[in-house]
């Protein structure tokens, strides 16, 4: 029984992006996100969208899969789009039906906002979740944040927690499915009734799920102890992170993209974004 949720799951591969240093990938995704927020004009967004397609092509992942991963966020995307279309005012009135007025600016704004959300997801999923193993990711994060250890921030502990959380997501999804089936077999009904009734129907799923998660946590803690885990002190790693010229080249490319976006904003300020 495989879960069909792809968001936040590593996809095996050996592309250029896969092989980048996870530390650099974290930095790159931050840079890319900053770049996305810098973009204001239609031209800048066109450029960004193009770069996103290139990025996806570089990873060798199927765009359909990335789109599927966005399904859970559909509501937010639709909500912001509708919000922008109806509330935004501008100069070019397109439709006027009583109190409802739709402006061209509103539509463009909505499209750009959607693009921004989609690009943000693409950036983080392409750089991080799809192409970096969760362990490499937390490893990278741990090393990036290592200086904070001096301030007594429990960096290793956080990264360990994240590793374990990521490791158990698919396991718990499977378990949820099993419990749901078990409750359905006893006549539980999850699909009818009003919102309150449906929420109530979830209780018999959540309680066994939580109990089992705590039991798992307890067993895992014992297993980790038996494998001599004593915290971050004195630990070595099998895979040591090394940045290569490729990483720096990638950083350069993303910085150039950022500069291009700023320039596009300045020199081609076609329908600027107002949010």
């Amino acid at each position, binding site marked *: 029984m*495989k879960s069909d949720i792809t968001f936040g799951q*590593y996809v*095996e591969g050996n592309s250029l992006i896969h092989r980048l240093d996870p530390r650099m990938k974290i930095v790159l995704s931050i840079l890319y996100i900053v770049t996305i927020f810098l973009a204001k004009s239609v031209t800048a967004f066109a450029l960004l969208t193009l770069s996103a397609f290139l990025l996806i092509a570089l990873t060798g992942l199927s765009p359909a899969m990335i789109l599927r991963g966005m399904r859970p966020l559909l509501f937010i995307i639709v909500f912001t789009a509708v919000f922008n279309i109806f509330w935004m005012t501008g100069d070019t009135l397109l439709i006027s039906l009583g109190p409802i007025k739709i402006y061209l600016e509103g539509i463009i704004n909505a499209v750009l906002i959607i693009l921004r959300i989609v690009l943000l997801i693409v950036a983080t999923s392409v750089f991080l979740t799809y192409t970096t*193993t*969760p*362990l490499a990711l937390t490893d990278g994060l741990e090393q990036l944040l290592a200086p904070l250890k001096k301030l007594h921030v429990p960096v290793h502990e956080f990264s360990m927690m994240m*590793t*374990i959380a*990521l*490791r158990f997501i*698919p*396991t718990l999804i499977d378990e949820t499915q099993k419990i749901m089936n078990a409750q359905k077999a006893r006549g539980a009904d999850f699909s009818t009734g009003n919102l309150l009734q449906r929420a109530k129907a979830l209780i018999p799923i959540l309680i066994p799920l939580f109990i089992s998660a705590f039991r*798992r946590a307890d*067993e*895992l803690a*014992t*297993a*980790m*102890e*038996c*494998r*001599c*885990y*004593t915290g971050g002190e*004195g*630990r*070595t*790693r*099998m*895979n*040591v992170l090394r940045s290569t010229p490729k990483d720096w080249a990638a950083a350069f490319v993303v910085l150039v993209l950022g500069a291009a976006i700023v320039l596009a904003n300045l020199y081609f300020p076609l329908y600027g974004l107002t949010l």
Partner: protein
Amino acid sequence: MQKTPIIKAEHLTFSYPGDAESKPVRALDDVSFEIEEGSFTAILGHNGSGKSTLAKLLCMVNYPDSGELLLCGKDLTAPDVTEEDILAARRDIGMVFQNPDNQIVASIVEEDVAFGCENLGIPSAEIRKRVDQALEEVGMTKYARSSPHNLSGGQKQRVAIAGVIAMKRKCVIFDESTAMLDPLGRQDVMNTAMKLNREDGITVILITHYMSEAAMADRIIVMNQGKILRDGTPSEVFSDPEAMWDAGLDVPQTTELLYKMRKAGYDVRLDLFDENDCAAEIARAMKRAREGK
């Protein structure tokens, strides 16, 4: 040659603390035994017989209330024992648990195998070498980069075993590691356990309630109500099926069949655990009986 005991337990006692409603539960009651280095021992017992509690004591997850426990000659129940001594003892004793899911830490097989070595602070290149060897040994090399989530139960247990091998432990305790597996997965894990013992000379302690698995060991310790009921080779332990049945345990099906044959008046041996040997013995006995008439 006199082998040194890797584990020596003297009068171990352990109780689980009770809560408001229940009294403390005595799980182990005056248990003494020795395990020789390089041996293959099975610990048999039904649920609640204390066998898993014993495993938890042996890998120092729980501490005995009284009695002495020596691991590799080091007394871990001495009053002056330090946290370091316990950690050092843990390095030598590995454990494979019942639920394959709840002992895998990492999302990539090889990184999970490396986890224990990383905790020991072994240099990276050495870890790499050990992990590759360990995966090779359990036959999981081609899954090195895949996610444990996509493996079968038996494969997950083999990954856990690889983790133990990579840490170069002297002794491995299998705490009902086959209980949640299908017959194929069980076979896999048993074969790997046998290989560890026969080829690498690692001491194996197999905690189980499958009689057929226990019959593969050199020695069986039968636990009942926190005490050792019997201790001996499989033929010794299974020679008295009535005593085993009284303790709520079974004997291998072959032994049961032979025992019933014997009660019916046939002259058969009881200590045959292989189906073919058993069939041959029955054929012989029946032939003898016919000729006797």
